Structure formats: structure tokens, C-alpha cells
């Protein structure tokens, strides 16, 4: 594959990633957000495989496989199980209306492109659109975490944000050292485990979600 084809494919995957991000922000039900984040991780795995095929970097194949197994299948499945077991309300509870969140997401995307445009032709040469797309994904993930009440939807935001970081790092550096990538994935798994356990424990002991914890006073 020529480098132009690879750039074009990475750009296309970036557009699809933005689309899944919009779906996550707009999702009114927890399940839809979970499926959207699974699709997003699948796209990241495809991007890693494309980069692996073009650069011949063997580590990237491992990364693609790990992303597919852990982030596209394992974690969404885990979230799914937790949602089923907890018997919570299936609707996302936003702090501000979802339409307002969508408007903020648009502002983030435009800002990300505007900021990266200041890097000039160098950015275009190195990464195509991957850098602004990655920044937009990361910040929108943070936005999702900030504007949702329940812990599970915040977790979806965390995964999406992490996907954005992963995509940026991968596309800009053509593959980081394997040990770092594995460390990042382990971090995510750990965060997911801790949050899941916390959610389940809090619910089983005091029957409250973390949104109710802000009324605690020491």
C-alpha cells in the first residue's frame, strides 16, 4: 500500500470514529452508548491493522489484536453484564440536555481542527486528519464523562476518551513501543474493574449511584 492510500484510509476511519463519537454523545440509552463504543474500538483495531500492514511493524499487529479482544469485545461485554445485573434505569441521565451536549461536541470538533490547523503543512504531511480527530475524540470523551450522572455512562466516556488518545498516538508515531501500549490497555482494564466494583459495592451497600454521593458532607 502506498502511503497516500494509508493516509486516505486513516482519514476515513477518523471520520467514522467521529461518527461513533456523535452516536455516543447522542445516545439516550446505555446500551446504545455501549454498542457505539464497541464499534469505535473495532475501528481503532482496524486502523492499527492497516498501519501494521503498511509499516511492517509487528508490534502493531499485537496491538490490533489486543484492542479487538479487550476493548471491542471484552469491556463492552462486561459493561453489558453489569447493566443487566444492576437492573438500573436503562436511560442515560444527563446533567445538561443532550442537545446542549451535542452543541458542545460540535464546538470541540471545530476547535480541534482550528487548533491543529495552526500547525500548518507539517501536520498535514505527518498525520493527515488523525491529530485533530484524536484531540476531538479525547475531549468529547471527557465531555461525556462530565455531563453524565451515572457511573456506567461515565465509564463509556472514559473508554471513548482513551480510544481518542490511542488513535492519536498510533497515527502520529506509526506505532508506539509495545510495552507502553500494553501498559495503557492494562490501565484501562484496571480503571474499568475498579469502577465496576465500586459501582456494584456502592449499590449493594447503600443503594445509591455515585450521582448521590455529592450530598455527602464530612
Amino acid at each position, binding site marked *: 500500500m502506498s502511503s497516500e492510500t494509508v493516509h486516505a484510509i486513516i482519514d476515513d476511519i477518523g471520520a467514522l470514529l467521529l461518527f461513533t463519537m456523535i452516536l455516543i454523545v447522542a445516545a439516550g440509552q446505555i446500551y446504545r452508548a455501549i454498542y457505539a463504543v464497541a464499534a469505535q474500538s473495532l475501528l481503532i483495531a482496524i486502523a492499527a491493522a492497516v498501519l501494521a500492514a503498511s509499516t511492517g511493524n509487528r508490534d502493531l499487529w499485537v496491538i490490533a489484536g489486543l484492542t479487538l479482544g479487550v476493548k471491542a469485545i471484552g469491556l463492552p461485554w462486561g459493561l453489558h453484564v453489569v447493566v443487566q445485573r444492576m437492573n438500573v434505569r436503562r436511560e442515560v441521565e444527563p446533567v445538561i440536555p443532550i442537545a446542549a451536549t451535542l452543541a458542545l461536541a460540535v464546538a470541540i470538533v471545530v476547535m480541534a*481542527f482550528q487548533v491543529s490547523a495552526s500547525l500548518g503543512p507539517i501536520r498535514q504531511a505527518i498525520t493527515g486528519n488523525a491529530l485533530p480527530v484524536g484531540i476531538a475524540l479525547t475531549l468529547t470523551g471527557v465531555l461525556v464523562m462530565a455531563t453524565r450522572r451515572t457511573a456506567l455512562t461515565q465509564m463509556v466516556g472514559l473508554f471513548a476518551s482513551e480510544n481518542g488518545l490511542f488513535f492519536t498516538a498510533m497515527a502520529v508515531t506509526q506505532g508506539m513501543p509495545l510495552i507502553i501500549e500494553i501498559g495503557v490497555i492494562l490501565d484501562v482494564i484496571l480503571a474499568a474493574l475498579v469502577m465496576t466494583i465500586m459501582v456494584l459495592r456502592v449499590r449493594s451497600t447503600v443503594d445509591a449511584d455515585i450521582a448521590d454521593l455529592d450530598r455527602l458532607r464530612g
Partner: protein
Amino acid sequence: MTGDRPLELVLLELTLLVLLGPLVTGAIQKMKARLQCRQGAGVLQPYRDLAKLLRKGTVQADTASGFFWAIPILVLASTVAAGALVPVARLGPPGFPLGDAVMLLGLLALARFLTAIGALDAGGAFGGMGASREMTVAPLVEPVLMMVVFSTAVAAGTTELGALAAHRGTSWFLAWRAADFLGFAAMLVLLPAETGRIPVDNPDTHLELTMLHEGMLLEHSGPGLGCMMLASHTRQIVTLGLVAALFFPVTPMGGSGALALLLGVGSFAVKVGVLVVFLALVESSYAKLRLFRVPQYLGVGFVCALVALALRIL
């Protein structure tokens, strides 16, 4: 002015669009019925409905003004005029000044406006409610459609649909850039709204509180109602043709003989067929949204279209 589509060809395409419009509706309804394990009416049912309506007499509300009878004719005329702008059999700009995608959307908006005026004029409660709802949804749909059109027009440097489609070239899917994916996603979100289908509107109900477009037709009867229904069939196929022209122009370009034209029409039919399957699947797998949730649904389309534009420009 030279172009690839002479006047005769445009007239021929226009006739074809108007004639095939009811067939598209019939096909969607048949497919929907099969998906719901029903036998369903034949695909030709819309034609039979139209023929029946044209034979009937007209009854008008006492409160309706003298303008009321002209509404169906004007609506049909502006929709059919919009149909003239859609390239069917051959790509490329028309050989005479005709109008572009902005004109097409404007004509569709005019038809929508006239329908609403007619519904308000007759003074029925359902008509007024349908009109007010339609006018709530329309300002959310039309700007986004404009943005989708512009996001492809920026790349082609023209808003003329035939030229836009020709710029897209024949290797359609492989030539898709990043912005096209998002633009197409926005278009798929908007398509049910623009054609008046679930999850925004429900074309199957009459006399229910959920209806938008059908509510506005209640006061019409006989040939007038026939005109309105033909107009909504035509509007649907025109919208599908717009999507086909913007996103999948696979029309074989070579030659100008009858065979090339037939191939062009055939490929147009295939493209519309794909969209018909999509609409039928969406209609059978989703419930109608509450009216207050519709802006949020259309907001997804808006954001997609805006990001597509951002990808093109920034």
C-alpha cells in the same frame, strides 16, 4: 451554453420520476408488510388509490377560502419542478439554464409551505396541528440538507446536481473521502424526516395524534387529494434521487445512444432500490419518536453534517 442533458432528456427523466414515484411508495409498503409477516397490498396499490381519487368528486370545508382549491395543483407543480433538477439517466450539467440543488431544496420547501397553508386555511383542528408540527420539523431538516449538499458541493466547486454527480466519477465507493462518510450518515438520519417516515412521521396513520404530513391532507378530497398524494410520492423519489446524485453516481458514462440511457435508468433504479430497502428496514425496526424527541434525533444529523463541512473546509 453546452451541456450533456438536452431539454428532451430532462423532460423524459421528469416524466419517468413522476410515473415511478408511486411505485417506490408501493415497494416500501410491500416490503414493510413482508417484514411484519403480513401479505400486504400489491406494489401497484398507490396507482389504484390515485386512479380512484381522480374519479371522485370534491367536498370542501365551508370555512375554506377560494385559494384552497389551488393548493394541490401548486404543491404538485412545485414538487414536479423540483424533479426536473434531479439527474436520472445521464450525469453532467443540463444544456440550458435550469437550476441547482439549492433551487431543488427551495422548491421542496415551497411545496411544504403551501401544504401547511392549505391545512391552516381549511380550519380543521387536525390540519392546524399537523401544519404546526410540520413547520416545527421543517426548519430543523432543511438547513441540515443544505449543509450536506454544500459539504459535497465544496469539493466539486458547483451546486448543479448533474455536474456534482459527474464530478463524483464512476469509482464511487473507493473515491469517498472522509467527509463523505459523515455527510452520508447525516443524509441517512435525515432521509426518514424528509420522506415523512418513521421515526419522525408515520405515513400509515390517519386520525391519530402522531401524524404530521397526513394530518395536513385531511381536508382535501377527490382529485385534490390525489394531487397531494402524487406530490408526496414524487417528493419521496426526488429526495432519493438527490441522495443518489450526491453519494452514489455509478451511472455508466460512455455513449449517448439508447443503450447508455437505459443503463443509466437501470443504475438509477438500483440506487433507489437500495435506499428503499434501507427505508423499509428502518420503518419496521424503530418506533415513532415522541415529537419532543425529534429535535434530538435530527440534532445527530446536524452534527454529522457540520463535522463533514468542518472536515472539508478546515
